[in-house]
C-alpha cells in the first residue's frame, strides 16, 4: 500500500500545503511517495526528498507542466496511478482543479476536503459548510482524496532522504493554453499559513478604511489580512482574502475579527483557530459565540487603541 502525494510547489520550493498533505498520506498507513510535476523543478524535487516520512520522489519536468494545467497534470498522474492505493492532493485551488479530473479518468469516486483519516479507506469530511461532519468510506480500489490542510500538522521539512526518480513527461494538451496570471504581490505571510490573521468585515465601510484600519495592525503583528464574504462582495477586499466556506479555510494561532458579524459561512472558515478575538459593536453578533475574547466596541476606536497598546 503506497500513497502518492501530488506536491504543490513553485518549481523552486515546496509550498506549505504539501507538508500537511504528507502527514495525511502517512496516516493512510503505507509508504508515501511525492510527485513533483513542473518545469525546471529540480530544486522543488530535491526539497521534497527531504520531507520526513517520504520514501520516494517522482520528478516529471516539462514546459507542459509549468503552470499546473489540469489537463496535463492529470495525464502525468494517471500515467503512474496504477502503482498506488491513494492519490492525495491538498485541497487548494490547484488540488481541487486536478483531483476530480484524475478520479474520473480512473473511474473512481473522490473524497473532498478530508479533515481526518480514520483508516485506509475511511475519512471524515465536513458537509453543509461545516454544519455537519460526515464519516465516509471509499469503495474504490484507488482512493482519490483532497486534504484540508488545517486538519493535519505539517510534516517536518527535513529529516527525510528519499530517492528521486525521473519520469518521462507527458505531451501537452492542444486543448488548453496558459495565457497569464495576476498574483497579488505582498510581503505578508500567506493566509492559509499565517500564525496571526487580522480580518475585517462589512463594518469597515469602504476599501480605504479597510486598508487604513487593518494594515497597520497587521504590520505590527506580522499578520496576514483576511476578510469576510460580505466585505469581499462589497468590494472592500480582494476575493483571495476571503475567509470562509467559499474562500480560504484557516487555523492560525490568533485570529482577530474586526467588524465581522460571524455568519455561518465565515465561521466555517476560521473556527479552528487557536485563539479568536472578536471586536464588534453589536453585543448579539454570532462571532461572540466562538470568540475566546470578545470586545464590545467600535472597531474604529478599538483597533487603533489595540495597535497603540501592542
Amino acid at each position, binding site marked *: 500500500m503506497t500513497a502518492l502525494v501530488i506536491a504543490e510547489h513553485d518549481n523552486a520550493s515546496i509550498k506549505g500545503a504539501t507538508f500537511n498533505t504528507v502527514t495525511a498520506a502517512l496516516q493512510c498507513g503505507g509508504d508515501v511517495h511525492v510527485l513533483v510535476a513542473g518545469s525546471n523543478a529540480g530544486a522543488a524535487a530535491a526539497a521534497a526528498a527531504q520531507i520526513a516520512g517520504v520514501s520516494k520522489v517522482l520528478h516529471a519536468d516539462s514546459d507542459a507542466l509549468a503552470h499546473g494545467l489540469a489537463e496535463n497534470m492529470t495525464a502525468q498522474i494517471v500515467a503512474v496511478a496504477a502503482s498506488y492505493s491513494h492519490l492525495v492532493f491538498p485541497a487548494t485551488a490547484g488540488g481541487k*482543479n486536478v483531483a476530480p479530473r484524475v478520479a474520473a479518468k480512473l473511474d473512481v469516486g473522490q473524497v473532498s476536503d478530508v479533515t481526518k483519516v480514520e483508516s485506509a479507506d475511511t475519512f471524515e469530511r465536513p*458537509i453543509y459548510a461545516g454544519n455537519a461532519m460526515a464519516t465516509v*468510506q471509499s469503495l474504490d480500489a484507488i482512493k482519490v482524496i483532497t486534504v484540508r490542510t488545517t486538519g493535519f500538522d505539517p510534516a517536518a521539512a527535513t529529516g527525510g532522504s528519499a530517492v528521486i526518480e525521473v519520469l518521462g513527461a507527458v505531451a501537452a494538451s492542444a486543448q488548453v493554453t496558459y495565457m497569464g496570471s495576476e498574483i497579488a504581490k505582498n510581503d505578508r505571510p500567506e493566509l492559509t499559513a499565517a500564525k496571526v490573521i487580522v480580518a475585517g468585515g462589512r463594518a469597515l465601510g469602504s476599501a480605504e478604511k479597510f486598508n487604513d484600519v487593518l494594515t497597520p495592525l497587521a504590520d505590527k503583528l506580522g499578520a496576514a489580512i483576511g476578510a469576510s464574504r460580505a466585505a469581499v462582495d462589497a468590494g472592500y477586499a480582494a476575493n483571495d482574502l476571503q475567509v470562509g466556506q467559499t474562500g480560504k479555510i484557516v487555523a492560525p494561532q490568533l485570529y482577530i475579527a474586526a467588524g465581522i458579524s460571524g455568519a455561518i459561512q465565515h465561521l466555517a472558515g476560521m473556527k479552528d483557530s487557536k485563539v479568536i478575538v472578536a471586536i464588534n459593536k453589536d453585543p448579539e453578533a454570532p462571532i461572540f459565540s466562538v470568540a475566546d475574547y470578545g470586545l464590545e466596541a467600535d472597531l474604529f476606536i478599538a483597533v487603533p487603541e489595540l495597535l497603540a497598546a501592542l
Partner: protein
Amino acid sequence: MKVLVSVKRVVDYNVKVRVKSDGTGVDVANVKMSMNPFDEIAVEEAVRLKEKGVVTEIIAVSCGVTQCQETLRTAMAIGADRAILVETAVELQPLAVAKLLKALIDKEQPGMVILGKQAIDDDCNQTGQMLAALADLPQGTFASKVEIVDGKALITREVDGGSETVSLTLPAVITTDLRLNEPRYVTLPNIMKAKKKPMETLTPEALGVDVTPRIKTLKVVEPAKRSAGIKVPDVATLVAKLKTEAKVI
C-alpha cells in the same frame, strides 16, 4: 452555439441544517429547497452569453428526484430555453452525475457546458472536472470571467493568491465562481413563461449510465462546538489576556 447548464436542487442557503439524531444524515424533510447558488450563477452566465449573441440555445439539466422539476422551472425563468430532468431516486454522487451529463453531451452536442463549481450541500467541488475528464474536454474551473474570442473560450480563473487566464478550445467545460456575475431576480412574467417551456424526462437506465454510489456514508454528526469565551471590558484587558493567558502575542 448550444450550451448545457446543470442545476442542482439543494437545501436553501439560508436554512440552518440539523443533523438527524440517528446519525444517518442531515434532516431535509420539510425544509426550503432552492437552486444551488453557484448553479444560479451558471444559468445567469449562459443567459448573458445568449443576450450577447454568442449562444443560441440554453438547455438546463438536473439529475435527481421528481421535485427537481421546480429547479428546472427556475432555470427557465432566468432564461434557459428548455430543460431535461434525469429522474432517479438513487443518491447521486458527483461521478454518477458527471456520467449522466457526459451522456447528454453525446446526445445534445453542446459547444459549452457551464456548472456551479460546488454544491452547498455535499461541498464536493468535483462534477465539472469529472465531466471534462469523461468527455475529454478542456476545463475552466472557478471562472470569474468568461469570454468567447475567435472560437475559443478565454477564462479568468480564481486561484490561490490571485487569478490566471487560460484559453480553451470549444467545446469546453466551465465551472463558476462567486464573482462571475450576480444572478438576476426572476420576474413573474418570466415565471409564467417558464411554465410553457418544454421539459423532457429521462432516466439513468435510458442513458445507459450506472449510478451506483462509490462512497458510503457511515455516519453524520454535529461538528465539535467551540465554546464561547469571555467578554473583555477594554483594549488594555484584551492585550493583557493575550499576553499572559493565551500567550499568543
